[in-house]
């Protein structure tokens, strides 16, 4: 007898699993259906097939601008977060220093802070310093949010690789930088890439913190949020939503499969 699960139980759980997956994907499928619907409002009955909304958003320059802005913000902030994340991870795994536990707690604390609290904190900081709000302020906020995620991905990888490889490089006369470039970095590259992707998608989708520190040039989530308040733009937004959701699903699944194969290869 299998103590964990009976045959009937396994069957019931499989059905339940399937139902939940349907529940999770149904809203996305509904958006997909209505993105091709030839009507100004997403209502039944469906009134005909059209590519109109896709053409409309392709020629919407505000929307394209917002996507572009988000791409810039996400690239800069994920680059920043990964650089800081690698440095922090190296310190946490390779160095011995006082207050390491406290440092590690601080580095991970942005994970639990309510974004509304962090958002207003940054707002007040920039207000106090007299810094104009703009893309730079959003980038700064996003680096803080993404940093713990990059550490969580990179640290386990660093713990896996044998530090005697690095010691050997030092013994052979390599400098710290040289060792990092020729030994450590190539070994942790898969983790660094997936850290970058996680930071990128986090930033690309981030609304809460950005809403407090954004200037006049809006990012995609900010644009989306304001567009949700105008029903006339709804069909276009649905079309964009479908494209973004499908692209991100493909990227996420691709990245995960890529990471697994890479890790299997490197060991």
């Amino acid at each position: 007898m299998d103590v964990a699960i009976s045959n009937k139980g396994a069957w019931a759980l499989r059905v339940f699993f399937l139902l939940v997956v349907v529940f999770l994907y149904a809203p996305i499928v509904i958006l997909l259906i209505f993105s091709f619907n030839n009507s100004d409002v997403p209502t039944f009955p469906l009134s005909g097939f059209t590519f109109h909304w896709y053409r409309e958003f392709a020629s919407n320059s505000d929307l394209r601008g917002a996507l572009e802005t988000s791409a810039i913000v996400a690239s800069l902030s994920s680059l920043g977060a990964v650089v800081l994340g690698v440095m922090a991870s190296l310190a946490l795994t390779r160095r011995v220093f006082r207050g390491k536990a406290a440092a590690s707690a601080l580095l991970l604390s942005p994970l639990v802070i309510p974004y509304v609290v962090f958002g207003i904190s940054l707002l007040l900081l920039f207000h106090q310093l007299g810094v104009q709000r703009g893309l730079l302020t959003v980038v700064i906020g996003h680096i803080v949010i993404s940093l713990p995620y990059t550490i969580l991905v990179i640290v386990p990888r660093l713990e896996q690789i044998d530090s005697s490889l690095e010691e050997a490089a030092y013994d052979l006369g390599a400098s710290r930088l040289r060792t990092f470039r020729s030994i450590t970095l190539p070994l942790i590259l898969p983790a660094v890439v997936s850290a970058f992707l996680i930071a990128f998608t986090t930033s690309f989708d981030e609304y809460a913190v950005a809403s407090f520190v954004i200037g006049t040039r809006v990012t995609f989530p900010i644009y989306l949020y304001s567009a949700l308040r105008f029903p006339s733009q709804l069909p276009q937004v649905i079309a964009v939503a479908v494209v973004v959701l499908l692209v991100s699903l493909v990227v996420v699944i691709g990245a995960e499969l890529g990471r697994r194969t890479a890790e299997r290869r490197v060991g």
Partner: protein
Amino acid sequence: MPLAWLVVFFVLPIAIVAAYSFNVYSLYPGQHGFTLGAWSSFIHSGVYLRLFWKSVQMSLIVSAVIVVLAYPLAYYLALSGTKRKYVLLLVLIAPFLTSYLLRVLAWKVILGDEGVINSFLFWTGIRSPGHPISALLYSRFAVILVLGYIWLPFVALPIFVSLESLDRRLLEAAGDLGASRLQAFRRVTLPLSLPGVIAAFLFVFIPTLGEFVTPSLVGGTTGYMYGNQIVDLFGTGFPDWETGAVLAIFLLLVVTILTVVFSRFLQPRQVATD
């Protein structure tokens, strides 16, 4: 250097908010100085604390319901012996990694008075046109449904990790000693997976407690949460940064206490490495 970054752009800003809450800084020029005025009116007026309690209840409902839903999913993946468990896990989690706002948008389209559900009911004649079920959108129900939808894939992960690391020989031993499946579950599996369940619960409860985006999009007035109040106090209408700062610091304190008290269950590394 990463620490310096966090001190300047994370710790310092929070300290400034705390300073505002004690009126050391102020939005308006004029009298400054340390006072507990805003704090004492926060505690005595009761309006904000009632709203906070309402948000706690909403987050508790969301977290409890989806932990209960996610447990059998994780159990199925970890213990049923299915060969494709990682693929299925990825299928389950993938929606969580896509755009948050767009998933809220989807529910707005589905639940509205002119939305997919109502127009479907009109079309099929179940409800007469002009009499939509309006409680679907802009209600507490909508906020709880959408938050549950958003977080459900994620909570399965920590529970899966704890069930996956369970030593199956313990279950075999329980079976050999004559335990029924229910007994084995109650005496072995459930207690051993409890840390994962608590972690899952907190991973949802903590972020939804301060949530303001979902309630502002689908909550209307009845779904208004504590986070919305904070945003409004810093908003453009009648800004009151002092009170807003008090509310923010209070939320932060509650979250910090929860995190510290339950820190031994919150091991994000375990989750991330899987």
